[in-house]
């Protein structure tokens, strides 16, 4: 990344920095990457991702429906990152509990979307709710409700983490050096 690109990134508001590195954060999470998660959009307090249907992720082989566990993972990811978008800076959030209501099976072959909203932040706990759908957000496949523990992290550490992630954006020598030396503090499990 060029110096001017990296100082541009450093000057962005935190939510915009997070938006820019969201796919990188997915790709850096082996399970999220293996499930084929794709970042779609975020705002302060909201996060949206999708996953294409994959025959390896089918639960019931007779019906070709994507396994519930895949939706659980999408919702855990979306809820955690929704909390990240609501926090003032990058801090680890750790799932305390997660409840999923399965309203109906996802359609075989369909791409599934998961949107989560951070409903409430306290100093140590973040609450989020999410939904999964396939063709129509008004006809959801599943709902989730979750609570996360917010792990404290210094401002300096948060800044280092987000700047490290930003340095991976264009790829290149600077990001290789960064990867060898330190890691970004994960924002969610």
């Amino acid at each position, binding site marked *: 990344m060029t110096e001017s690109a990296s100082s541009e990134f450093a000057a962005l508001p935190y939510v915009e920095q997070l938006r820019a590195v969201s796919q990188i954060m997915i790709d*850096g*999470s*082996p*399970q*999220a990457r*293996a499930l084929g998660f794709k970042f779609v959009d975020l705002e302060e307090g909201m996060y949206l991702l999708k996953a294409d249907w994959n*025959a*390896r*992720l*089918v*639960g*019931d*082989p*007779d*019906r070709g429906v994507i*396994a*519930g*566990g*895949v939706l*659980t*993972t*999408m*919702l*855990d*990811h979306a809820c955690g990152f929704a909390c990240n978008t609501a926090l003032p800076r990058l801090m*680890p959030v*750790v*799932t*305390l*509990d*997660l*409840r*999923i*209501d*399965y309203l109906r*099976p996802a359609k075989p072959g369909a791409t599934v979307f998961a949107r989560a909203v951070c409903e409430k932040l306290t100093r140590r706990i973040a609450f989020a709710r999410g939904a999964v759908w396939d063709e129509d957000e008004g006809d959801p496949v599943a709902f989730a409700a979750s609570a996360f523990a917010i792990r404290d992290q210094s401002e300096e550490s948060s800044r280092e983490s987000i700047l490290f992630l930003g340095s991976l954006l264009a790829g290149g020598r600077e990001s290789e050096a960064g990867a060898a030396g330190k*890691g*970004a*503090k*994960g924002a*969610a*499990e």
Partner: protein
Amino acid sequence: MNFEAAEDFLKRAPYAEFLGVRALLHGDEMTLVMAESRRLIGNPINGALHGGAIGAFLELTAVAQLYVSGKLEKFPKTIDVTFDYFRTGLVKETYARAHIVRLGRTMANVRAEAWQDERSRPIAAMHGNFMLNRADGEAELD
């Protein structure tokens, strides 16, 4: 008790293979094992297993236990599941056991726990309700 049904389910479900899950039988007790794999990591910084993968493993364990009951004709539908996360899971084998609290005519309530180093210090637990598919037709939620 129908362990063959549980093992058959695990062999046939692609997602069970994706997660690296197999069943161990000791007498009439079944423990499921999720293989050690870096692919299950959620947070690359501390190498913690993804909470979603742990949850998925617990849900599979519950379904496998329902198959053992011998009462299933087809794959059961999960109605709802709740996961509690106690401790970070690391990159090593994860074990789980499920207990059927109530097996009704059309519905079952199942609890499950997952652990790694110590059975007495579980990393996560689940409880959930499942709709049992009856031989005489598809079970609907309503």
